[in-house]
């Protein structure tokens, strides 16, 4: 009752505020919306930007990928999203899936006890060095790539674009979106950058293809 009243009052105030009937302008979109660079150049740019953010970057193909994953995750128990491509996985990796014995997803404390997470990704923007996760089956729910302290993220080369508008075109807003640009960081104390606060302190990116 009081809520519909509040809404009516606010909309009435806003309508009154707009009594001069301002016209909404057309949005000029002269900014770049599609890349003019070759794909190899775009991938190089992504690597450069990721390194700049203090992420570790590796380039692998189908034959070398499992070996790299084995090396990066040797010392950890790693959680895997259910939809992850099993051909990526090396023999003998210590892994868990996102459900306990009665089928429920792991709790926050259970996730916190794990060492690492391995995910894929939906699209990456080279110009800003940003990896987009979009809740796909091989990325898992958002908590998976957040709570463990080490995130190994596979970026298939055909998902690399140069510009932000090109990346947003591939996003599905119906599912949660997480944009990741390097490990978590803060500059809150005297502007001195400290890598690693609450998100994973170590981010390894494998450019794959």
């Amino acid at each position: 009752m009081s809520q519909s009243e509040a809404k009516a009052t606010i909309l009435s105030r806003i309508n009154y505020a707009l009594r001069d009937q301002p016209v909404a302008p057309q949005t000029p979109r002269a900014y770049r919306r599609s890349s003019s660079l070759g794909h190899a150049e775009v991938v190089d740019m992504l690597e450069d930007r990721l390194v700049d953010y203090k992420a570790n970057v590796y380039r692998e193909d189908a034959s070398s990928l499992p070996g790299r994953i084995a090396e990066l995750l040797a010392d950890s128990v790693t959680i895997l999203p259910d939809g992850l491509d099993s051909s990526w996985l090396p023999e003998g990796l210590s892994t868990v899936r996102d459900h306990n014995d009665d089928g429920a997803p792991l709790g926050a404390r259970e996730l916190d006890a794990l060492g690492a997470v391995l995910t894929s990704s939906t699209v990456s923007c080279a110009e800003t060095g940003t990896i987009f996760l979009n809740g796909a089956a091989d990325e898992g729910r958002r908590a998976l790539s957040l709570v463990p302290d080490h995130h190994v993220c596979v970026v298939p080369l055909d998902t690399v674009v140069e510009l932000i508008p090109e990346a947003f075109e591939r996003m599905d807003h119906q599912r949660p979106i997480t944009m990741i640009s390097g490990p978590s960081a803060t500059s809150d104390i005297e502007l001195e950058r400290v890598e690693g606060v609450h998100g994973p302190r170590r981010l390894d990116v494998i450019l794959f293809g």
Partner: protein
Amino acid sequence: MTTVDLGMPGTRIAYGSGNLYEETPFPEHARAELKNTQMRANIGHATHTIRGKRARVVGELPDWQDLRDAGSAIKQEVGARLPELLEQFEANVTARGGVVHWARDAAEANRIVTDLVRAKGVEEVIKVKSMATQEIGLNEHLEGQGIKAHETDLAELIVQLGEDKPSHILVPAIHKNRDEIREIFSRRMPGTGKELTNEPAVLAEAARSYLREKFLDTTVAISGANFGIAETGTLTVVESEGNGRMCLTLPKTLITVMGVEKLLPRFSDLEVFTQLLPRSSTGERMNPYTSMWTGVTEGDGPEEFHLILLDNGRSAVLGDPAGRSALHCIRCSACLNVCPVYEHAGGHAYGSTYPGPIGAILSPQLTGVAAEQNNSLPYASSLCGRCYEVCPVKIDIPSILVHLRDEDIRTKHGQRDQAATQQRSTVIEARQAEAEAAGVTPEPAGHPAEAKKKKVPSEMDLLMKAAGTVMSSGTRMGLAERALPLGRGALKPFGGAKWLPGMVGGWTQERDIPVPPNQSFRNWWKNNGENTQQRVAEDLGDTQLAVSAGGEVPASSLAGEIHQHAAWGAEAQAVAKLRAERDQAEGATTKDSPATSTGEREGEQNA
């Protein structure tokens, strides 16, 4: 479907309440802050560093101005279509399982949050840094209701544990150095021991361990929002540390407080603002983490999502066509970092949640200029125009400052009686409601009629009138100037005046009055004017002055005018350049003769 009567009788302009007021007038507060050398050094370092980073990453983009144009147009569209977009947004959030609440003012928003938290039966919540919740004083309100709100952003945590106030939108604890932060942590953060050093990495680690427990156990989180998408119902939070992701992902219930102006019409508009915001704000190509969610997603994140749409004076800002673009602000803080006034006075001097140039236009508009508490803010600027140049959505801050000064003056002269009375009464009502909600006795408020400012001429009016009479007549001005030697005689033994009485004392607050010259300029001009004109003719000859290049700044704005007036300096520069060239040439031929024409001219000037 709600039908709204356009301008229906009884619709009133309603101003905001909460942490939007100066506690003391800006000049007074600033004078005290200026003595805080640690704060000034920290702020100076921070603003200059971020300013440099911003310039670098903005310079990297060939289409930065195109992005600004797009951002500005989208925000204008949001203002013009706000009622329709809000309805669309509410429908989409609801369709995706979210619950939308509407809050007319700070007190109502606080009450809604409290009820929601109580319904969950918890006494602790975690919070993502948010300007909107700071504006409404949510933490203090919750505390009064027995609910502890833990800030999870590192800087906000420092401010909260230190029982301090934020001094910068982006880096709220920038006025504290590492030793002060170590001291606060070791005193107030459970579990910190002697091993805590003043290393930023060690301090960040301490905060990480302390907050991790909160993230894992707390079931209700409160956030703000950077953007809300009308077309899809999607919300966005932009951050660096991952505390935002924790709050948005792990708890069972999420409550988001969002100002109604934070809407964007289309999902694709995010491609503009996710480029404009990080580069303007932290000076990074992109901030480490950006989260977007639409309603509730099964199996991923909170099971319950509440969105509170907050007015609190925003509709009043929208109602002023000359000032409404202040609502375009995306809280990047670029204007703070370039502002010469902010750099020296710091964020606390502005009183309100919103400091710096944007605060100087936003706070007085949210509360109403006539609300008195904020009427010194529009003067907290030198109108240099840098804030406009760096604003990612092109808010013409200098023009709005001048507009608000005009409003303030007209209010003081009783020319806006009705508006002033109304503003004051709405603010008083809001404050009373707030006080009642918090369970304290409201301070006795002055009668609204008091806002009818005295029509009796003020000291300033009398001074101006006298000056007008003298200056409008050459004879009277000449007579007045004869008094100059008198003033000179009185002040010379003291080397000038350090204090003047009454209203004119305002001058001597900031500077000393020098000893007056022995003759007036008019007197000097009488004897030398002709020579001067000759000299200009001599200097310039038939040289054509270069027309200064026009910039991107529209001439209709104040910033545009400042830009144009800068072109006036081109004349002086041309003269100086020609003189220098000629002096050089002459100097080569008449090197041995001390009586150069330049020397003679200098003699004339000193005569």
